[in-house]
């Protein structure tokens, strides 16, 4: 049984986009669309989650994701508590479920969880009482579903549909929970061609089985693309044996205006942030007319509002 859905098929937790039906993905994107104008109004709030308590449970540091979840919850009128657990009770050795039980005893209604360990959000979701929902805000290399959804929202806003697109995901797919969520969402929403581009050492073995085409050079991979998604190259990868150097990586896989010219002239460039300028992306592209990197951040608020609103309402399963 899918722990994310109620027996009658409504969203119960959001842990991964893997296995979520297209109808639910589309419903989230449509609901986010109607939340878009709330940020433009005199009063940037709707009363949907009034009286609900949402806990941002971040076992791993994050600025943008945590902040946009916080803004989204506040625009829904929820009360938000931020816990950066890496720096508090975890260092005192408290077990994760003890932390969760304590917060549940404070009448939590929803947990937003980020953790370095894959599966952490699932683990919490299986443990909590029926009225509590869990949103995965990134677990290890596994999934980052709200990032995947906001990327789909961005693509739909700029390209209108999914059925006629070629989308390339470039860089460190191996360590990227974002890439996994994107691939699941893109294939579920009916994108006919999803490509991954990167050096052999940074692509997972068997990635073809996720329904993507594999490329090891940018020239072939970017040709004819409508959407180019750049992934962050984590600095720590450089210290291992996976890559020779940042300069070398930029030379082959960094997105420069010249390489971007291989994609369609109206191709959009996306990045989940934070960017390493001059490593995976040239500043001229990041700040250029084809970049939609800042709209992604704005859309992230509406998408997270949509997910929270769909989880918080209705009878508990």
């Amino acid at each position, binding site marked *: 049984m899918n722990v994310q859905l109620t027996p009658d098929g409504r969203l119960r937790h959001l842990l991964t986009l893997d296995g979520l039906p297209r109808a639910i993905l589309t419903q989230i994107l*449509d609901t986010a669309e109607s939340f878009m104008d709330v940020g433009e109004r005199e009063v940037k709030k709707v009363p949907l989650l009034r009286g609900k308590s949402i806990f941002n449970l971040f076992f791993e540091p994050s600025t943008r994701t945590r902040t946009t979840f916080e803004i989204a919850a506040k625009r829904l009128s929820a009360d938000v508590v931020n816990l950066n657990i890496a720096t508090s009770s975890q260092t005192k050795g408290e077990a994760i479920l003890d932390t969760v039980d304590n917060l549940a005893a404070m009448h939590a209604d929803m947990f937003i969880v980020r953790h370095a360990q894959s599966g952490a959000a699932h683990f919490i979701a299986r443990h909590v009482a029926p009225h509590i929902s869990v949103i995965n805000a990134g677990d290890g290399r596994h999934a980052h579903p709200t990032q995947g959804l906001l990327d789909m929202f961005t693509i739909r806003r700029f390209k209108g549909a999914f059925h006629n697109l070629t989308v390339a995901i470039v860089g460190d797919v191996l360590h990227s929970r974002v890439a996994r969520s994107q691939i699941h969402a893109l294939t579920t929403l009916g994108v006919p061609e999803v490509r991954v581009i990167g050096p052999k050492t940074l692509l997972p073995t068997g990635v073809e089985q996720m329904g993507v085409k594999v490329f090891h050079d940018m020239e072939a991979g970017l040709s004819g693309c409508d959407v180019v998604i750049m992934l962050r190259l984590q600095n720590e990868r450089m210290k291992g044996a996976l890559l020779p150097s940042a300069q070398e990586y930029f030379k082959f896989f960094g997105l420069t205006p010249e390489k971007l010219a291989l994609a369609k002239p109206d191709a959009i460039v996306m990045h989940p942030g934070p960017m390493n300028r001059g490593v995976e992306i040239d500043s001229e592209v990041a700040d250029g007319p084809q970049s939609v990197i800042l709209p992604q951040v704005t859309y992230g608020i509406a998408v997270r509002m949509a997910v929270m609103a769909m989880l918080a309402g209705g009878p508990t399963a």
Partner: protein
Amino acid sequence: MHASLPDVDPLIAQMAQAIAPTLTPDTALVGIHTGGVWIAERLHALLKSPQPVGTLDISFYRDDFSRIGLHPQVKPSNLPFDVEGRDILLIDDVLHSGRTVRAAMNELFDYGRPASIRLAVLVDRGGHELPIRPDFVGLTLTVQPHQNINLSRLDDGHLTLSLA
């Protein structure tokens, strides 16, 4: 029980006649999704109002959200004018409990402070649960609590009322 209900078009025409003398060039018509928007569009054409029609989807303001959850098809609200200081004519198809109108007023105030809000409904079916009454009404009926009045729009745009 199947009762025959009157044609919708004459009811709207009669509402327009009652509304016309009270309308200023600044008054904005705002329909509540979905039936209220259909009526607002009809009234807008009859009254030749210079302001564009506003639409409200009150899903984010419902008082039964925690019981029944979010409506699966929320449409964006669209108020293409400044609400601050404006006279608003709020329009819905059926007035029943009054909870939808309350939610709509709450939403309007999040866009600004209107000078006034008046309410026009095609059908007042009774069963009010809040101190909300229409200023303009097409038809007043007393309907059993278990019955529903529905406004539907045919492919040719024709509006019909039914009781089920």
